[in-house]
Every structure is written in structure tokens, then in C-alpha cells.
């Protein structure tokens, strides 16, 4: 009896992590030659780096109990701006930093609309996403930007340091930074307080508007960085290149919420969530599972995760 409770507690605390390990084990047993090799594992970290970075942004916005559905559109825009700047011969650092700054402001604008008019972030950012998609299309002429892209622009996406891809390093660094911010700074504490109970936060004297706006702004910046990383890796930028990350970023955050007891969005969980999605995609591709079946599997897993979250938190209440 006691042992059962122990297992239940273990599953509740580490269920998602255990699921991730099981997935790795299954692929390793089925395809030890192709899946469980150093080269492929490093490859996976590179593949998930973009998803993790954009999902970090979604994690911040979700920690204040809001949604930013424009993350994909911002990523597309960021990629196009940076590629255009690179083609125009702008300094590579500037061509990375500028789109991030612009998107920081776009995110802040998202937040301002939501907080000052008290409208639903869901629909506001969805509409913003459409606005940005139109703008990106105009900027790119609807075509992929790939001609005359200087090699220096591709450095970010292709370089490795001591065998570790630069993209992987950026991902890990950002995870550490934002984990620290959310867990150990007053700003992070305030974000979680707002997400936990916005009324009580107001009573406690927290500037809810300002903190929410900042969460949206940081989300915008991280989304644009994802777009830049993508363009650099591919050596080209497509006007809808970042769109695909939108669904998966939220899938990662929701999976990640199941990793911690409180069921709140958190950096470690988001990383695990993105890893599960990335490993599945990688492993299933190696197994030559058709992509449509991959989509079905991924979707089912996300639904199961959300249900698991509800069931376990429901017991706690």
C-alpha cells in the first residue's frame, strides 16, 4: 500500500521526465546504430535549440497567465529582417541584434494592448500575428531571401565550439539565464505571483501592467532570436519560416507544466517538453515513420499531457 503511494508520487513528480527517458530508451533499442550515437544526440540538441528558445518566451508569457500567439509570426519577421540586413551588408552583429530589439518593442506593444484595454491576449496576439504576417510578406516580397547572404551570417547557425554547436550553447545559456530570472529575482517572483493570483498581486502593490508588458516584450525578443537562428542555420529566410514553431512552443510549455508539482510554466519543464517533441521527431524520422503519422503521435501526446496535468492537479486541490 505504502509502496504504491510512493510510485504514484514518483510518477506525479517525475512522470514527464520518466516518459522522456522511456522514449529515448525505446529509440535506442530499436535503432542503436542510428539513434543512440553521440553525433545524433548532439544533432538533436541543435534541432531542439530553436524550439526551446521560442518556448522560453511562451513560458514567460504563460507565467503571467496570458498567451502570446504571435510568437511564430514574430520569428518569421525576425528571420526576414535579419536576412535582409545581412544581404544589405550590415554588420552581422547588428543584423542579429536589430530584429531582436524591434521584436522586443512589438512584444511590448502586445502587452500594452492587452493590459491597457483589458482585452484577451489570446485574440489580440492572434490578430497581431496576422498583421505581422502581412508586414513580413510585404518586406520579403513573398519570396525566400537567400541570394547574396554572406557567410558571416551563417556562422551563428553552423559553428561549433569544442564539438558543441553554437545553437546548442545559446539554448543552454538562455535556459540558465531565464531559469535564474524566474526563480531567483524579484521580477520572476512577481511574474509567478501575477500568474498565481492577479488580484492578490494588485493588493500586494505589484505593478501588474508593467510586469506583464515586460513578459510580452521578452517573449517577442526570444521569438525574433529564434527566427534569426533559423535563418542563420538555413542560410536563408522564408516569410513563413517561423510559423511552424508556434504550436510546438505551446506544446512544450504545456508538457513542461506537468514536470513540476505546482503545474506552473517553468524553464526546466519547457526544456524537457521541447526535448520530448524533438526526440520524437528525430527518432520517428530515423524509423522512417511518415510525417503525417508523426503529427498524429505528437498531438496525442500533448493531449495526454494536458489531461495528466488536470488529473493530478485536481487531486491536489
Amino acid at each position: 500500500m505504502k509502496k504504491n503511494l510512493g510510485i504514484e508520487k514518483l510518477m506525479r513528480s517525475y512522470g514527464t521526465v520518466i516518459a522522456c527517458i522511456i522514449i529515448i530508451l525505446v529509440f535506442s533499442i530499436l535503432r542503436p546504430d542510428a539513434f543512440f550515437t553521440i553525433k545524433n544526440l548532439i544533432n538533436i540538441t541543435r534541432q531542439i535549440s530553436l524550439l526551446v528558445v521560442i518556448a522560453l518566451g511562451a513560458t514567460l508569457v504563460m507565467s503571467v497567465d496570458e498567451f502570446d500567439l504571435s510568437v511564430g509570426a514574430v520569428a518569421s519577421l525576425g528571420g526576414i529582417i535579419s536576412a535582409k540586413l545581412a544581404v544589405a551588408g550590415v554588420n552581422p552583429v547588428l543584423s542579429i541584434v536589430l530584429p531582436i530589439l524591434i521584436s522586443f518593442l512589438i512584444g511590448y506593444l502586445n502587452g500594452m494592448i492587452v493590459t491597457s484595454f483589458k482585452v484577451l491576449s489570446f485574440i489580440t496576439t492572434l490578430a497581431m500575428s496576422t498583421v505581422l504576417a502581412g508586414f513580413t510578406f510585404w518586406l520579403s516580397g513573398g519570396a525566400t531571401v537567400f541570394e547574396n547572404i554572406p557567410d558571416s551570417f551563417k556562422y551563428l547557425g553552423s559553428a561549433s565550439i569544442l564539438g558543441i554547436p553554437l545553437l546548442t550553447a545559446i539554448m543552454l545559456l538562455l535556459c540558465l539565464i531565464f531559469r535564474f530570472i524566474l526563480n531567483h529575482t524579484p521580477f520572476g517572483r512577481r511574474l509567478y505571483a501575477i500568474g498565481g493570483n492577479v488580484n492578490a498581486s494588485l493588493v500586494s502593490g505589484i505593478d501588474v501592467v508593467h510586469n506583464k508588458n515586460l513578459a510580452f516584450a521578452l517573449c517577442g525578443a526570444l521569438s525574433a532570436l529564434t527566427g534569426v537562428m533559423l535563418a542563420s542555420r538555413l542560410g536563408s529566410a522564408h516569410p513563413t519560416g517561423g510559423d511552424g514553431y508556434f504550436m510546438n512552443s505551446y506544446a512544450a510549455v504545456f508538457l513542461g507544466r506537468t514536470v513540476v508539482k505546482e503545474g506552473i510554466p517553468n524553464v526546466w519543464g519547457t526544456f524537457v517538453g521541447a526535448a520530448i517533441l524533438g526526440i520524437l521527431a528525430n527518432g520517428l524520422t530515423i524509423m522512417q515513420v511518415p510525417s503525417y503519422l508523426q503529427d498524429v503521435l505528437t498531438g496525442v501526446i500533448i493531449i495526454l499531457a494536458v489531461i495528466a496535468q488536470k488529473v493530478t492537479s485536481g487531486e491536489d486541490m
Partner: protein
Amino acid sequence: MLLRTKGLSKQFNGIYALKDVDLKIKAGEVHGLVGENGAGKSTLIKILTAVYKPDNGTVIWDGTETEITDPLKSRNLGINVIHQDRQLIPSFNGIENAYLGLEYEKKRGGIIDWEKMKRRVLKLSESLGIEMDFTVPASLLSPPQQTLLCIIRALMTECRLLILDEPTASLTDKETAILFRIIRKLKEKGTSVLYVTHRLEEIFFLTDRITVMKNGRIAGTVDTSESSEDMIIRMMTDNWESRTSSGSRRNIGETILKAEHISSKDGIVKDMSIDLKKGEILGIFGLGGSGRTEFLETLYGLRPKSGGGITLYSEDYPQPTPKSSIQKGMVLINEDRRKMSLIMPFSIRKNITLPVIDKYSKAGVIDEKSEEGHAAEKLKMLDIKSNGTDQTVSELSGGNQQKVVFARALESDPKVFLCDEPTQAVDVKTRYEIHRLLRDRADSGCGVVFVSSDLKEVLEVSDEIQIIVNGRSRELLKNRDLSSEDVLRYCYLDR
């Protein structure tokens, strides 16, 4: 006898909200139901409409024992309620709202017969003497018109008992007159009316008999013609007298918080003035809906203020915000701790330090050791029963949760405490501890504003009692030889 209840009892968390209630309503009578805040009126109505199930007791309807299992059953019996908060669907028009829960009229082939529905609603409203536009959405109707629409809906089906819960709260004199005429008409037709209100003059104007409730029990039922307002008020309270010694011992100093003619933007607080002195516990008492909570929220800066002046430590404080209130040493203990005070998924420690988290940070990083130390100190000081400062507050009992709220308030070393029902749903021991804490603070030179709907408690802790009626401050009573009857008389007999 149309309705008779026998020994109805209902407990919440081990506390009786209703005990052995025997209510008798005759066919065709207008029956008044009065009682102090929390006397059990709402609980009784909710049992009759199957929102709650009674723990004990039976309902006898029209001579037969009946179990009211769900709201539909209640409506089928002919019991209809009109609540304070008008329950309409804002986007539906008058006809659609009148037909809520009813089968729509249909033509052959299942097409909705709007014309027939309209005719039926209009016929009913004409017979009641109500004129309104039934084609516009309910959200565009004025609050009084919405109440009238609720009445029409209640009378769409055969109504044998109409329960009106504070129906005139938002009505102007004109609509009140219409309502009273409708009640008379219903009475002529043989419908019984249960009329719940705080307004005694309406009770005496309308009713045949009056039932008075007190502490979840029925204090008595009297014929209206044989009673007086004084008699009803006397029945409402145990006439608890204040302990004259409690207030006078304290050393009361100069004014610390002065509020003059405060009004809130939403119009709930109309004209409130208080004068809080150092070392004083100022009780504020008013009936439900008088604007007590809203007044404290306006002072604190949570609710937009539209007029009036606040002076805090003889400094002008024109635009209060929660942040600056905390910085200036004025804290608010909210009525609803789950909704307004605590971050439920947070630990005790994080809840306690939230408003002053910057104090525990060095170079933008939280110093968790010093945070933990302070939280642990508060835990000990207030005797909060827990598994340590890292326990989630949602796992604590109500009393301990409220102590966490106080622990947080004390973090900013406040001089003014605005307490709104600070002992609501806490155990007796915690209640005593909270009273003692507030007295200690007052003795050390703080000022405390104490709001409670429990009059006995207000008389127990306050030095002075400010009466509030309908968003306006009225008499200021010295809590000396004061009885609950005196206080209630000021609340009920205010014109």
C-alpha cells in the same frame, strides 16, 4: 398552509448556518423575512430552490412532504426566486429571457413561433402593468427594468410562491411602486410572496406576517399588524452589550488617518468620512451591500476614487495606489483571502514576503536565506501551524491562511490596518489571536479600521463605531454602554 419546513438544518464546515428552522407560509400571504447579516436568510432560500441540500429536516409543500431535489423541481412546484443580482442573459432580448428554461412555442414543422411568444409575454406584462421594450437585449435595459423582466420571467409559469431577495436595492421610487402593485396583484390571485429585505418600512408596508431570523434560527413569526419596528429589531439580536471597559483603557492619540467625503468612481461609496486616531480600533458597521468593503478598497487605492480627500499622518494623500499605501504604512486585509489576498500555489514564505521582496534582494537577486529567516520568524511569532515556510498555502487551514495574510501585512511595518472581515471563516482560537494582535498593535500606537458583519464582534473590539448606510457615513457611536440593538436601530431606521 402552502409551505412548511420542519427542523431544517444546514452546516458549513461544522458551523450551523441554519438550525431547526420551522417556517410557515400561508397561501396568498405576503410574508416578510428579516434578520441581521448572516442570520441564515440566504441559506434558507437556497434550500427552497435546491441550490443547497439540507442536512436535516423536511419540506412540506401543499400538505405533502416533498424533497426539492433540483432547481427545475422547485420551479415545477411553483417556487420562483428573484435574486439581488438579476440573472438574465445579457445578449438575449426580453422575450428570449422570459422564455429561459421554458419550451419555445413552435409552429408546425418545428419552426419557432416568435409572434406567439411575444403575444404571451406582452399579455403577461400588460396584466402586471409593466411597460418595456422586449426587443432589445437585456444588457441595454436599465437595472430596474432588468428586475421587472426577472419578475415577468418568474411569472411565465404558474407561480405559487414568489421569493423576492432584496428586490428594491437598485429600484427607483417609480419602479418600487410598480413592484409593490405587482405584489398586491399576485396576492389577490392567491400567490404567496416571501419578501426578504433589510428595509423595515417596506416590510411594514407590504407584509401580512413577519418571520425574524437570528443566528440561523427562527426568532419568531409575528403578525405585521401587531408588531412594531422596535419589536422586530429587538427580536433580531440577543442585545449583546459591549464591555465598557475594553475601549476606555487605551491611550488614544492624534489623528493618523482622516477621510473626508470619499466617493468611489463606481458610485457604491457615496459620501464616507472617518477619523482614525493613534491607538484606536474604529469599527465600521453597516448592513450587507452598504459599501463597507468598497470604502476600504477606495482608501487603499484598489478601487478608483472619484471624490473626497484622504489625509495620512497629516499629509495629503490624493491618489492612493496599493503600492504607495504599503510604502506609507497602510495595509489592507481583504475580506476574501482566497481571491484577493493569497497566491494559492505559492509557499508560505513567498506569500509573506511578496510586497517587500525588493527588501530581501541584493543587486536584483533574492537573498533566500534572509527571506527564509524572516518568514520563519513570522511563522513563530504568529504561531502558524505548518510543515515549514516552504509549505504551499493552499494546504493550510483557513485560520492559518489568514495568519499568513497578517504575517504579510506586518512585513511592511504598517501604522494603519484596514481590516475587512479579518476573522471570517477562521476558528475560535485564531479569531481570538487576531483580536489580540490588533489590540497589541493599537496599544503600540497604530490605528485599526475594523469591518465585520458580525455585530457582536464589532462591539467586542471597537473603541468607536461608525455607522454606514448605503455608501454614506452616518452616526459615530462611542462604544460605551452600547447595545447591538442600538446599533441596528441606526442601520435599519435610517431614512
